[in-house]
């Protein structure tokens, strides 16, 4: 009885975990985090400004991104925005890494 419950509970936990986006669970090594921050400042910074105050591309400060969905932001980073100069950055980072970048931006921790 008890073990049955445990198994069922385990299954539910497994189900929830497997439904969660992979990105939440992924751990980005520190060295890679630094590389991503550098990319954000230097390469994203080409259009969005080194301090992310905006340029040809919009500002990416916490204030500017307030209320925007993290999933949408992650998709824009990975797949770009057709009709604008925003390019798909998929070749440079994984889904998890893009999600981590989005979180950094939303938390106002970057760069």
């Amino acid at each position, binding site marked *: 009885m008890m073990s049955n419950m445990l198994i069922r509970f385990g299954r539910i936990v497994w189900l929830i975990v497997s439904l969660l986006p992979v990105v939440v669970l992924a751990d980005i090594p520190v060295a890679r985090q630094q590389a991503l921050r550098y990319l954000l*400042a230097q*390469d994203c910074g080409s259009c969005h400004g*080194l*301090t992310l*105050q*905006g340029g*040809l591309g919009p500002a990416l400060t916490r204030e500017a991104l307030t209320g925007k969905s993290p999933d949408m932001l992650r998709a824009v980073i990975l797949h770009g925005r057709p009709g604008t*100069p925003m*390019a*798909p950055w998929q070749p440079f980072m994984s889904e998890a890494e893009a999600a981590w970048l989005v979180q950094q931006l939303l938390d106002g921790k970057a760069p």
Partner: protein
Amino acid sequence: MMIAGRHQSRMWGVLAGCLLLAAGCATPRGTGDLGLVIERAAGRVQVVNTSQPRSLATISGLGDLSHASLVYSRDARYAYVFGRDGGLTKMDLLCRRIDKRVLQAGNAIGGAISQDGRLIAVSNYTPGGIKVFDTATLEPVAEIPAAYGKGQRSKVVGLVDAPGNRFVFSLYDAGEIWIADLSDSKRPVVQKFTNIGKQPYDGTVTPDGRYYIAGLFGEDGLALLDLWQPEQGVRRVLQGYGRGEQPLPVYKMPHMDYWAMAGDRAYVPAVGRHEVLVIDQRLWKETARVAVAGQPIFVVARPDGRQVWVNFAPPHNDTVQVIDTLSGKIVKTLTPGKGVLHMEFTPRGERVWLSVRDEDRVKVYDTESFTEIAAISAEKPSGIFFTPRAHRIGQ
């Protein structure tokens, strides 16, 4: 007595230091072999000497220098540095200090100096438009908002000077080119050209000041305006150079810093293609294209026009390629290091300086042997600007 003596010697030291500083400023010296290197993340510039080559001084306090560019006063003593944060800083190359600095907008992209050397114009993203200042005092002279449609303001790009004390620039969001005549600086006369193409991302003028060319991001082609006959309007050239193929992703906007010319041919970056387009400038038709290592960013001609040097967007930004304009072939591929952001030739082109961001160095190459002959430490260097720009139309 001892204490007084030490005090005295320190005083003398300070005095000597002051004299030295004043001497550096007052000793007669030309500026023709000087230049500035932008250290963009640190908000600093270095004054450099291209004859030595070496760094002479570092000056800080210039604000956010992402994408910073500058123009020189016609006496080539002062540089006007345009910062991303809207800062306009007048630098004195001889005294090696900031002469004046104003915050003129929220977000700026570049600028130009007028034919008569009296006016400095800054192109702004926020609020979209240009602002004009007195070169001596940096006092505001005129403002031209880039208003279009239903009162929107467009980001302004590709601002250059043209003969007749005119400034020419493009409206990125509106797809327009404007000519502002500042012969009477208090009453600018603006001529607008609409529907010039989608998303002009930068613009430049031919060295004779006759043709203004805007590169288009939103479509394959360039917008061309004959400033000798502006009444003929803007025409599209090299239309459809992508041949309908899906463009490749562009991980950094190309630049049209200075019209790269060799004889009657001009070299421009293609957008979304790993190619440099070669244009016959008499007919304004494509005559060739050169396959290159990546998305070209800067395509610059050595002053004699024999070579054209190209750098690239990520992930190919560790590479520089050299096109021999006689054969139309790439004769050299260099890998100076990751993040080659800018290239600048010495006045007559025997050397080229490359800013190599990730190595925190500016590397100096001999343009005949392609060997690295010197390196100068600089923190995340970006733009390199030498004083011969002072006397070129459009720079």
